[in-house]
């Protein structure tokens, strides 16, 4: 692998999952072969992104122009630090999730597993392509493919509820992206004459600062995957999907593709200087801040475990959006780091939630009394994930919150600092009681000897691994920090 050029590694990483898709479909009747294809592909992709990561850290910036679609607009890819960070997170966690998914899908006796694995592979391919996009058009293309390829995953069960959720999912994501984001891209194109991601942005000096706020708002709300209120409903709706989907796609790939796009637009289309000088984000900040708090508050009211986690994600995504909107150096670093930190913690929480569903068939928090004593590993993982989300040491989540908070100080936005602090307290309030209930509450009567055990081994392995990452990222956040700094400060 060392002898292959970085350009080719990049293509391989994007194409492999796509190549695996028809293979998965052909292996329909042989589940073991089918899962082996997924696992092997995922393992190679993980190795590819890690190799690419070491090369990007060493200063390489592979670039690849595929072909021109319209005059001046081409499909092209490059790896810059922020994209590398996102690809690293999505690529490695796909492997972990694949391991988990095998345990989950079989343990849960899900139907149509072939369709599941095939759609999953397409989704990952488009996620990686989005991460490597070199211009807004390519990114938009991948963004839409991601939306459509995840639709069969969201509606996997085929029930009326799934159908309804699918409508909300597609309606909001396609609606915002075609109605607002496409418009924003077209305006950007007609003003700037280019869509290439450029250090320092492409709009400064070309767009009347008076309109900057309007265009920025079209982007922020148009990127529905970032789930800024009032366009957040698709995310809780998507929870009807099987848990591996919720874990990887709706805590990592899809939602992070949203905030990643927000960061890309902020850093490479507007440029933080232009945002600060034009005041483009002045009133948008309050939408994001409201989302942070309201998301947490709504999470507290949800008894369904996955719904609570979903609203927690809505809230946490707006941390990143808020970091982008504040647009100071520290806040942008914090926002970029939060992509990785939140991903590792939230995926752990979803893994645990899925483990509980498979092993104990319980979906509501109120049913979890005493379950922690029967499933200690699962609940330990859940605790670790919770603590990392809250932002306590020794877990990775602390670092991103630290820089986000420093960013508000740098911008002298004291109210926003308060928002972050208050939200952390709310995090404690809606996450810790779950673990506490599992460990300390007495079991419900009559459930003493139902024989609930820990979930199957693949689930436990995946869950333990992501928990360890949460811890490791506290002691060794350098890879994430370095990439974030490089992206924000430029090379």
């Amino acid at each position, binding site marked *: 692998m060392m002898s292959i050029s970085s350009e080719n590694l990049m293509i391989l990483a994007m194409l492999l999952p796509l190549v695996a898709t028809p293979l998965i479909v052909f292996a329909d009747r042989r589940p073991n072969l089918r899962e082996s294809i997924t696992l092997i592909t995922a393992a190679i992709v993980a190795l590819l992104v890690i190799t690419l990561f070491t090369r990007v850290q060493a200063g390489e910036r592979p670039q690849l122009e595929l*072909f021109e*679609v*319209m*005059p001046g607009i081409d*499909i092209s890819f490059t790896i810059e630090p922020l994209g590398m960070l996102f690809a690293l997170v999505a690529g490695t966690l796909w492997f972990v999730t694949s391991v988990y998914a095998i345990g989950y899908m079989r343990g849960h006796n899900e139907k149509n597993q072939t369709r599941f694995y095939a759609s999953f592979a397409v989704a990952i391919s488009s996620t990686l392509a989005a991460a490597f996009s070199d211009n807004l*058009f390519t990114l*938009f*293309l991948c963004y*839409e*493919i991601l939306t*459509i390829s995840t639709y069969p995953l969201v*509606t996997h069960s*085929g029930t009326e509820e799934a*159908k309804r959720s*699918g*409508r909300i999912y*597609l*309606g909001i994501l*396609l*609606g915002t992206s*075609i*109605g607002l984001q*496409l*418009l924003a891209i*077209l*305006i950007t*194109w*007609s003003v700037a004459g280019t869509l290439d991601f450029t250090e320092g942005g492409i709009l400064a000096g070309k767009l009347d600062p008076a309109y900057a706020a309007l265009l920025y708002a079209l982007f922020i709300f148009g990127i529905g995957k970032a789930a800024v209120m009032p366009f957040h409903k698709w995310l809780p709706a998507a929870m009807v999907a099987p848990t591996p989907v919720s874990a990887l796609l709706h805590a990592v790939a899809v939602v992070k593709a949203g905030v990643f796009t927000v960061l890309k637009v902020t850093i490479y289309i507007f440029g933080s200087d232009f945002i600060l000088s034009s005041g483009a984000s002045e009133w948008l900040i309050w939408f994001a801040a409201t989302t942070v708090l309201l998301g947490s508050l709504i999470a507290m009211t949800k008894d369904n475990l996955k719904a609570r986690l979903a609203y927690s994600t809505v809230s946490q995504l707006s941390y990143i959006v808020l970091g982008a909107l504040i647009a100071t150096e520290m806040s942008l670093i914090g926002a970029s780091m939060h992509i990785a930190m939140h991903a590792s913690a939230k995926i752990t929480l979803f893994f645990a939630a899925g483990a509980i569903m498979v092993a104990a068939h319980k979906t509501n928090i109120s049913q979890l009394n005493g379950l922690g004593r029967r499933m200690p590993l699962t609940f330990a993982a859940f605790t670790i994930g919770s603590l990392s989300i809250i932002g306590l040491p020794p877990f990775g989540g602390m670092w991103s919150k630290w820089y986000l908070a420093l960013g508000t100080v740098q911008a002298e936005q004291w109210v926003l600092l308060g928002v972050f602090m208050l939200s952390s307290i709310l995090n404690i309030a809606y996450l810790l009681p779950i673990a506490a209930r599992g460990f300390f509450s007495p079991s419900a009567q009559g459930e003493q000897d139902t024989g609930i055990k820990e979930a199957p081994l693949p689930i436990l392995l995946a869950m333990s691994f992501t928990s360890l990452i949460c811890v490791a990222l506290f002691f060794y956040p350098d890879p994430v920090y370095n990439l974030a700094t490089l992206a924000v400060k430029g090379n």
Partner: protein
Amino acid sequence: MIETHLSLLIVVLPLLAAPLVAILPNGRLAWAVSSITTFVVFLLAWQQLVNVASGNIISYELGGWAPPWGIEYRIDAANALVALIVAGIAAVTLPYALRSVEKEISKPQHSLFYSAFMLCLTGLLGITQTGDIFNVFVFLEISSLSTYALISLGKKRQALTAAYQYLIMGTIGATFFLIGVGLLYAMTGTLNMNDLSQRLPDLVEHRTIQTAFAFIMVGFALKLALFPLHLWLPNAYTYAPSVITVFLAATATKVAVYVMLRVIFTVFGFSFIENTPTDELFLLLCVAGILIMSFYAINQRDSKRLLAYSSVAQIGYMMLGIGFGSMLGLTATLVHLFNHALMKGALFMAIGAIVYRIGSSRIEDMAGLGKQMPWTFAAIIIGGLSLIGVPGTAGFISKWYLVLAAIEQQNWLIVAVILIGSLLAVIYVWKLIEALYFRTAAEPVNNIKEAPLMLLVPTWILVIANIYFGLDTELTVGTAEVAVKLLLGDPQ
């Protein structure tokens, strides 16, 4: 030899094939002859486009009579592009026709069916090739009359009323056009479009010329089904045989839009239009058409009718570009003309494949079919995404240029309408997809098989074209830009 008479051969070949096919015995021979003719015509049309792609104009004198006395075929990038669409769609439709026609039309009528098809093709290609405005009328009638006959061959009895309805409306439209042409001739003494364009500027103030313009516009607005003159279209598309729906939806209205372009920009010149309320009226009708017809589409229970209403809405997009009258706007019109032919062709073919298997185009009858007909289902998904305008599909390119044209004019209302139109398209396209995708529990499992290859392959050629022209726009946007320069430039 072929090179010099290329422009004529494109029209004459199907014209000669028509009587030949009619006297052939019923069965596959008639189909084979018409297919081969169409393939040849397609290759010729391709060659013709290559010849004019760089912006030159070919003038062909019919029978050696010099224009403006004789009939002139005058080919530039605009005609060549439209002729290519018509010939191309015909070339994928005919292979598809074999199985579908065997299923839907009784055997004694097969030869006549293919004969009428050839005549229809002659008419449509003739309209695009000719540079003589009366000749347009002649070819218009050839294509219309054969179309009425083709629609009436539909399986259901309503096909007869649909054809009759179209006959009445179409004849009114043609008559209006003829009156307009007559008035032009009375004032200028010429029928050659190029000649007209030189004589008209001196006469623009004349009431008769303005009346002539109004008659021609209304006549063709009827033919291209511009809202609210679209009433014939939904029934015609719904009850015609599947093959004819495919062919009409992808070509007939497109050719009418092309004539509109030609008359407005070559014959009269856009400055003439700008002095009349026509362009504003177009924009208004388009906006109303896009919104109202999309809502109609959402409420349909029959998939063919749903797509028919969507077609009327999409015609609004094409006419928007004409209303703008700008470089970008016309590029959008021509590009969408091409792309819409691809997406509607693919979608109607896929629906036709379903009709072939279950004998119904009602949406409720399709529940859960996606599993049994995965390739047809995938074709509907991709065709539908193209109709919505998702990036990576041809429909996106159209939308891109349309919105850019509207932004250029600072017409934010129309920007909003185009985007809202796309969102409404999401709703009606997904109505189809949901029906095919989800199976209701009560539904018994029936043993419906995937459509035969003879239907699937042509469908997928168009589906792949939808993706290809969404990623490589050299042919579509490139040719359109050349054509628009000629249309907007000095009519010389």
